[in-house]
């Protein structure tokens, strides 16, 4: 066991992948000599060489497009988009080919690639470096969307994503890269993609979130317990596609009340899908309307004013109280 932050835990997963699979290749901008702008690929070029850790020209469409060709010839590309805000330049190769090749060719060609990209606000970065657009990727048939929240699940889920036979959008909460450390097991741990985790058991209300928002949610649960005697159950979704409706249903059927939290804009966001699922499966168990704490349907303001526009402890606490007092 080592105490690692998320950046180090991701680095560990990548190191393991390159060591275990000699067909695995990391490609991205500044991932080699510079070791990635967030240092996620630290030491990898040194250990594995330029053929395995490839400093790519500034061309996102080509990173994805060439990765598709690598998949066709039997390689396992692990792509890094420097920021999710620039992932859109690679969008059409993802939507046009990566997510469709298996279906188009009836399984003859597949795309077992991972596309890592850092997302989310709260790091005082310039425009295009703070948004949460997971909804876009989660809407594409053929794409899995995995979003870790802490060092241990980040390592285990990245390993699983690299092993996965289909394209996985691995959306990294960059504000959490170095926010805290956690015990990460020495043995190569892998988590099943598509399983949510109940990270705190409770009986009064279910709070569902994922990624960077798990931090304010965990804090809010403590505050709700200490200041208001509320026993909240917390679910960390960990993946949006597949979405673990079983875990959500089991919890909501127990508590009858639910709050869904994310940084992404509200309209047609992941919370909308979560709520729709609850309404379809568990409507008669509900004791109160569900509340959503999300980003606004706005471009996230430049960093000097971004924080009030993101989910925080106060928003989660008051939404939970509203659900409880219905």
């Amino acid at each position, binding site marked *: 066991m080592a105490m690692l932050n998320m950046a180090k835990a991701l680095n560990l997963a990548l190191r393991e992948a390159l060591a275990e699979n000699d067909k695995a*290749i990391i490609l991205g901008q500044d991932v080699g000599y510079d070791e990635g702008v967030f240092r996620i690929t630290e030491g990898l070029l040194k250990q594995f060489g330029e*053929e395995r850790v490839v400093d*790519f*020209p500034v*061309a996102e*469409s*080509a990173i*994805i*497009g*060439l*990765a*598709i*060709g*690598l*998949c*066709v*010839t*039997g*390689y396992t590309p692990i792509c890094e988009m420097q920021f999710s805000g620039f992932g859109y330049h690679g969008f*059409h*190769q993802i939507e*046009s*080919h990566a997510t469709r090749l*298996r*279906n*188009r*060719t*009836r*399984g*003859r*060609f*597949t795309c077992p690639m991972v596309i890592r990209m850092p997302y989310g606000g709260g790091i005082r970065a310039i425009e295009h470096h703070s948004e949460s657009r997971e909804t876009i990727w989660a809407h594409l*048939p*053929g794409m*899995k969307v995995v979003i870790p929240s802490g060092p241990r699940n980040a390592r285990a889920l990245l390993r699983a994503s690299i092993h996965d*036979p*289909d394209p996985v959008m691995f959306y990294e909460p960059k504000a959490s890269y170095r926010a805290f450390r956690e015990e990460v097991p020495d043995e190569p741990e892998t988590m099943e993609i*598509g399983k949510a985790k109940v990270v705190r058991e409770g009986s009064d209300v279910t709070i569902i979130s994922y990624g960077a928002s798990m931090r304010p949610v965990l804090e809010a649960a403590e505050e709700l317990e200490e200041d208001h005697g509320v026993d909240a159950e917390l679910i960390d979704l960990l993946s949006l*596609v*597949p*979405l*673990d*409706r*079983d875990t959500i*249903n089991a919890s909501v059927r127990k508590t009858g009340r639910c709050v869904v939290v994310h940084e992404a804009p509200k309209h047609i966001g992941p919370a909308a899908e979560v709520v729709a*699922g609850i309404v*379809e*499966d*568990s*409507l*008669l168990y509900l004791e109160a309307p569900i509340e959503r704490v999300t980003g606004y349907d706005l471009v996230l303001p430049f960093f000097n004013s971004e924080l009030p526009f993101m989910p925080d402890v106060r928003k989660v606490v008051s939404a939970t109280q509203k659900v409880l007092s219905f």
Partner: protein
Amino acid sequence: MPRKKITLDNTIDSLSILDEKGKVDKKLEPKLSKDDLLKLFRAMTLARRYDERMLKLQRQGRIGTYGPALGQEAASLGPAFAIEESDWYVPSFREPAGMLYRGWPMARLMLWWGGNEIGATPLAKMNDMPISVPVASQIQYGAGIAWGLKLDGGDRVAVAFVGDGGTSEGDFHEGLNCAATFGLPLVVVIQNNHWAISLPRHKQSASKTLAQKAIAYGIDGIQTDGNDILAMVEATREAVEKARKGGGPTLIEAVTYRMGVHTTADDPTKYRKDEEVEPWKPKDPLVRFWKYISDKGVLDEAGREKMEAEITDEIAEAVQASESYEPNLMEPFDHCFAERTPALEQQRAQFEAYLNGNGNGKASGSASVSHSAVH
């Protein structure tokens, strides 16, 4: 000095071996056996008859919209002929001649235009990508395939196709730039047929030739007479030979002409005059190649008739095979991911029930506890 000329060491060759009268340049004539010449002639004829048949099938409502490649047979066939089976062929959408030559069952290509994924599925051993619809996007995965081949350490190459319109896409630039920078064994063939739907070549790019774009990427570029099968074979052979030795990519601009409609949904009279097409008619790749091989005594009129009769039968068989194909409507649920997600499992059950005539497949009282398996 503050200002001087930078001389670039690249120039662009233009290559023509067999002219439109069927006269060959003896010095440039590639070595091809009688068998090879017959193969090429048959493949070009097959593609031409296939195209003609497809246009008829479309008019009869037996397939969907069709994009013919009439007059462009040599440009896609030459490169297919010049590479090995173990190499990769990465088409755009106007390469039926090359695709058929590479071994795509004709029925599958018919099924593609009839709206079936089986038409995008190559046979198990083929190193062939299917038809690509998003213009120029295939250059990128073509480069990726070439990258994989290079990493494999052998001497295999990939040939990818794009149209003149496609050269304006970002993917053309990104793909070529990366292939050149990484020194990948990739040959990119531009089928410059002078039109991108309604946009003529001169409105597509201010470059004098499309081949010269190679200079900017630091690779070799060559312009060929795209209606000259010998020039297409020769130019590809040179490019492939260089790529096999680690010499990196080559850009070939095959100058040809779109003799027909863009697709059957298109009406070219809105944007081009018949007179513009006229001068291209004598440049037909089949006409000159027929003259060449008949002059050489490779095939006579009787032999040609026999060949045509065989082709007629082959096409009739393919039509029949394609029309007896029934898609399995449940199959899309099997090919979204390697394993169905819970959501797809549920949607599959609903769809199956729908196909069986049971409404939306939802049990009544869907909120009841007994329906808890829904997820």
